[in-house]
């Protein structure tokens, strides 16, 4: 019962957070200097053209009226139309989200497959001097090399050498599934480098923290095999920070990696939102920020709920304190 109440409070907090973000993003979009008419109509437009566009977009109404209309529509699943493409924003998102999600999931999969084993091995061999330094250098490089540098090198290499994959003609998984996956490999790999390094570092720190716990010594004293100790005790007990990081990385990746999307010409949601920002395409900006907020709130909620399942103390700490 207590756990259910705790979960209910978390959901309520999430909803309040989303409403706060809705207010903030709506206001912020209108405070930013430069209106849609300035950007899209250009300097040579007449005052009449600006006025017509402003009326068409409903921007001549008061802010409160605009907000109530917008939030009312959002609650009915209508995020409005893009002023540039004239298409419903939700339809545009439905086309682009699978592209971004494919890359995000592939990148995360690569990061976890590499990061967790590497971090675990790093922690288990932390006492060996040479190995510790080398692994720190590798993970340090992975974290500190900017993705636009790595991405540019990959683009150069794959467009210059006959490596079997070309840079142009990106295909979405919604068009042709396997070609879409193949198109997503390079951008996902570039994104995975940072994520893998971060995962390895977090895993290493978490495992190191668990290795000094008395129950590990007890397991060793019981004569359990090292592999069993790692699987049953170490990884399970160090999984919460890794889970938190995984959720954060997934939320970050789902938000669209703008630079990588640009470099590999990926029609994902990151580049879509950046273009919308430049054009002051309010419907898209608002939908974009709300989508990112929903993803972060959901991820945060999932992490908290799953953490409480792994370690029931998580859901009682708040009560206890």
């Amino acid at each position: 019962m207590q756990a259910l109440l705790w979960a209910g409070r978390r959901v309520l907090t999430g909803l309040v957070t989303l409403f706060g973000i809705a207010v903030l993003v709506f206001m912020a979009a209108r405070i930013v200097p430069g209106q849609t008419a300035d950007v899209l109509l250009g300097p040579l437009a007449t005052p009449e053209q600006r006025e017509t566009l402003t009326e068409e977009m409903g921007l001549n109404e008061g802010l409160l009226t605009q907000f109530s209309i917008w939030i009312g529509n959002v609650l009915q699943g209508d995020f409005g139309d893009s002023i540039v493409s004239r298409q419903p924003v939700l339809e545009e998102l439905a086309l682009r989200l699978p592209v971004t999600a494919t890359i995000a999931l592939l990148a995360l999969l690569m990061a976890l497959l590499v990061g967790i084993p590497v971090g675990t091995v790093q922690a288990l061999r932390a006492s060996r001097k040479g190995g510790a330094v080398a692994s720190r250098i590798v993970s340090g490089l992975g974290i500190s090399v900017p993705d636009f540098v790595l991405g540019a090198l990959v683009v150069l290499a794959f467009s210059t050498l006959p490596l079997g994959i070309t840079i142009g003609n990106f295909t979405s998984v919604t068009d042709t599934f396997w070609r879409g996956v193949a198109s997503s490999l390079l951008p996902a790999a570039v994104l995975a480098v940072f994520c893998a390094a971060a995962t390895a570092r977090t895993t290493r720190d978490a495992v190191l923290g668990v290795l000094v716990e008395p129950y590990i010594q007890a397991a060793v004293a019981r004569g359990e095999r090292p592999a069993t100790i790692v699987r049953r005790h170490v990884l399970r007990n160090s999984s919460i920070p890794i889970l938190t990081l995984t959720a954060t990385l997934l939320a970050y990746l789902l938000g669209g990696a703008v630079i990588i999307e640009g470099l590999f010409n990926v029609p994902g949601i990151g580049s879509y939102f950046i273009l919308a920002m430049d054009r002051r395409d309010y419907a898209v900006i608002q939908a974009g920020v709300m989508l990112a907020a929903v993803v972060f709130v959901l991820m945060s909620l999932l992490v908290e709920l799953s953490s409480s399942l792994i370690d029931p103390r998580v859901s009682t700490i708040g009560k206890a304190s």
Partner: protein
Amino acid sequence: MRSKTKTLTGVAVVAALVLSACSGQNGDSDDAELDLPDGYAAYDDPSADSAGGTLSMQLDYDTAETGGLDPATAEIARSWTIMGLVYESLVSIGPDFEIEPELASSWEQPDETTYVFDLQPDATFSNGRPVSADDVVGSFERLLEMAALWAGQLGPIESIENTSEGDAQQVTITLERPYTPLLAALANTPAAILPMEELEAGDFDPAEEMLGSGAFSVADHRQDEYWVFEANQEWWNADSLGVDELRIEISGDDQTRLAGLRDGSSQFSNFSNPDALSLLESAQGVTAASQTQSDFFYLMFNALGDSAMADQETRQLVNAAIDREQLVDVALAGAAVPTGVTPANLPDACSAETLQSATTEVEAGALEGMALSLLVYNSDPSLVAIGQVVQQQLEAAGATVELESLDYGSYADRVYTAQPGQFDLALGWFAGYADPSMVTSWWDPDTAIFNAGFMESHDDLNAAIEEARGLEPGEERAAALQTVCELVDDYSEMVPLATRPQVVGYRSDSLGITLLSDEGYGDFLRGIVDFRMLES
């Protein structure tokens, strides 16, 4: 001896050395350049056989118009280019800005204010309906009624009439007074001919779809992602078309478009960054060509409000402190030329070298103690580069210049919307069009409006602009345009700097292209009907 800034001389020398290796066409194109006919930056024999098939190209950005796909309201050059694949105007622009037939097979001018156009007898919209004189009359009347931007460039039109006799379709345009740029204005996409019968019947919405009489029709489009065009079999010259399908991928990153050319996934790309010339040089199988645009960069001074630039003599000093030649070499890789208000590559253009700003000596320290803001928008890499050079040149003359690189919305808010403007100096660029007197309109704030927040309206300048527009090409008009340039330079409220280059790269092992050496409407695909796919 002018004491212009010397701080960038070393850089300029390096840039000049780089450029000397890559100006014009690159790679193994030296021989090809010798064979180029006058007026072309790249040329492929249009009568040669084509392998046909799909041409894949990547462009840096898509159309983005509040009027959707309606050519009448299109305001940016990219829209003109893309819509120009589908629509036809009465006339087009050829080498050296000669007016050429397009939808009109011929025309004559019986007097100074009357133009009679005979339409191509086989002209047909892609839905199979023949183009009629009524379509032409209706399209122009619609354009004028909409008060679209381009309506102003058509000049003082008194009437547009269907003067057809029998089957021959003919249209007569009558002007209130002589207006030389009419034909050049008719050559741009906003003056395209729409299927008025379908439009008036409500069967065709030009904002949502494109239905023209041009070489291509739209098969698919996803905003900011791609276009797919098919050869229009109804086009009156369809047999000569060397491309069956045209796929345009929108790719905003220069590196990606370059990679596409290198690995062959793209056969044609454009680059607004002139440094692309040297980057393309190293790509095997790729040829680069630079097209001189009549578009040009200009510097705005805030002559109104509290800005230090409210003083005319100070503005003249700042104007004179800018070394255009050095700017071209350093910021534009030498692929441009200094210009006056009349774009340097157009006939009868004024000479930028003779203007006061070019001949005045500015001593080091002349701008001592002056603190200025210089605004640019960051979506155009050339603007940022020019801003950096201008900043260094003015600082060499003693001023302190804060270069602010903003997103376009913030920039427009401070430069165009604020009354008075919230800046000291700002950089921008204009389409230069195809007649030297067209762009001069923007120096009259009563007409242009966007610059009313930072410059005044001057009766003498406005009169000079109007006079030049009514004169036939030749010495008299050149002299009138020189006066316009001198007045603009004297007032120094909005001064031209240099032309804006356009670079294209293409896979010369699989594609032959035709590219005019000079262009007025940013349309580097004007010659696409002469593109030819080569046997691989």
